[in-house]
């Protein structure tokens, strides 16, 4: 399989001396499910945002679908962004709008400024929105206002908004960090389905190592802005985990043995 995303020698400095990322390298295959783990402040969010240039990397090269993202002009960047869906920890919905309106926002990147401003959507787009919301189990919430939903439901609207873009890749920034365990499982199962059944590449920032090990094809461990682990969850050792989190051996909450056994 060919690489859909290639990150090479990417660094990001904030100001003159704060280095958020230094010389990050990895590549992601089409349809792969990749989890990025690491302590708070390690640069996970910065890395994710550099990929769709919500933050501009200071140096390096990011190739997505054979296009160097860092060299794109404004118009080309918008076009590329339509191929990359994004999901946020705090869902980032427009709370006063309905579920279907928020879902259809995923189509705005394909519209002219005029149609976008007025929110003119085609009948097919509306039908597709309803279909996606049905798949995600939100058929009863379609015309509800988003601020009436639970956290897990809001995150599913976030996923619907990303899916209606027909993206090649999803970037998920801590999608379950604000959710309870059962909503978290629903969200992770949906993300896994998206990767397996639709062949969409999924890149997830996670704080829960056990969840990352259970769902991912590949784990990327980051500490201090550098990649310290890149490989299959099957081969990961307690030493690797401790290297990623900079913690001392035997001091993490969960049990590694349990996860490998499961």
């Amino acid at each position, binding site marked *: 399989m060919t690489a859909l995303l290639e990150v090479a020698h990417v660094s990001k400095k904030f100001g003159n001396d704060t280095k958020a990322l230094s010389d990050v390298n990895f590549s992601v295959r089409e349809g792969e499910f990749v989890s990025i783990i690491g302590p708070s402040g390690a640069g996970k969010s910065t890395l994710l945002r550099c990929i*769709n240039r*919500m933050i501009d990397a200071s140096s390096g090269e990011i190739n997505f679908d054979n296009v160097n993202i860092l060299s794109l002009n404004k118009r080309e*960047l*918008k*076009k*590329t*962004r*339509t191929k*990359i*869906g*994004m999901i*946020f920890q*705090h869902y*980032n*919905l*427009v*709370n*006063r*709008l309905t579920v279907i309106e928020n879902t259809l*926002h*995923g*189509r*705005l*990147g*394909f*519209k002219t*400024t005029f149609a*976008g*401003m*007025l*929110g003119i959507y085609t009948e097919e787009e509306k039908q597709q929105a309803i279909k996606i919301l049905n798949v995600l189990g939100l058929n009863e919430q379609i015309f509800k206002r988003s601020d009436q939903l639970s956290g897990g439901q809001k995150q599913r609207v*976030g996923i619907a*908004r990303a899916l209606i*873009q027909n993206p090649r890749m999803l*970037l998920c920034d801590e999608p379950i960090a604000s959710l309870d365990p059962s909503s978290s499982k629903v969200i992770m199962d949906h993300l896994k389905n998206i990767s397996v059944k639709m062949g969409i590449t999924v890149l997830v920032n996670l704080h829960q190592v056990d969840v990352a090990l259970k769902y991912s094809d590949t784990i990327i461990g980051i500490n201090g802005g550098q990649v310290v682990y890149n490989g299959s969850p099957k081969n990961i050792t307690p030493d690797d985990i401790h290297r990623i989190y900079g913690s001392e051996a035997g001091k993490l909450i969960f049990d590694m043995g349990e996860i490998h056994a499961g």
Partner: protein
Amino acid sequence: MIWVKSMQADIFKKKKLNTAVFILLVCFVTFIAATITEFSIAKGIASVPKAIQWSFSNFYPTKESLTKLPDILDKMKETLLISIAATTVAALLAMIFAIFGSTATRVNAFFGGICRGIATVFRNIDTAAWAMILLFSFGQSPLTGYFALFFGSFGFLTRAFVETIDEVSSSSVEALKATGASYFTIIFQSVIPSCIPQIISWVLFMVETNIRSATLVGLLAGSGIGFAFDLYYKSLNYHTASLVVIVIVVSILFIELISNYVRRVIL
């Protein structure tokens, strides 16, 4: 352990000392200010009964003054309309400046700074000061009052809108940016829908404030209800002047009632 305890005790003692010093300082400044201006609290309180007595014997409307009511209402209407017109037009302009000035939606930092800077200048010149300045260009006319209120509202509303946009819509702006939506699409699909209740609320607040200021501005600019009050008061027609005050109070209460109702419905 002992070291930790003594440290904590120190912190609490230090905070108490800070508070005591601060209160003493405030008392001292108040005392100095009162001495310099020869302000005496006792004298001030003592004169209150006298003022009340004067009000009750002179400052009430009579049958005679009621004949002026249509005139007064006419002036009040003019004042109300000018306040509303000044606020709504100022709100439109303020919205544009707020969008370019907010960190979430600005085009770039430099231009955003300019927008906020202009608004700050307008906000920090009081409406009364604007009335005096504009008196030179427009003379004693409703236009002076209109522009005085307009400039003051514009400055204040821009500031209020910038904070609303930053607070309410920065997260969904990020989400729409990530979908590849264009700038104006983001403004119309995310910023305006999420901010509209707060914006309406601020505009209503500004209308109320402007009706109050319009009284003073009218006094300075020689138009509207403020001028009517000035006229009756200076011609020693205290009964009619008191009627003007009553009309102002009733109108403000009425407007507050309406805007409270609107707020309840939209929020």
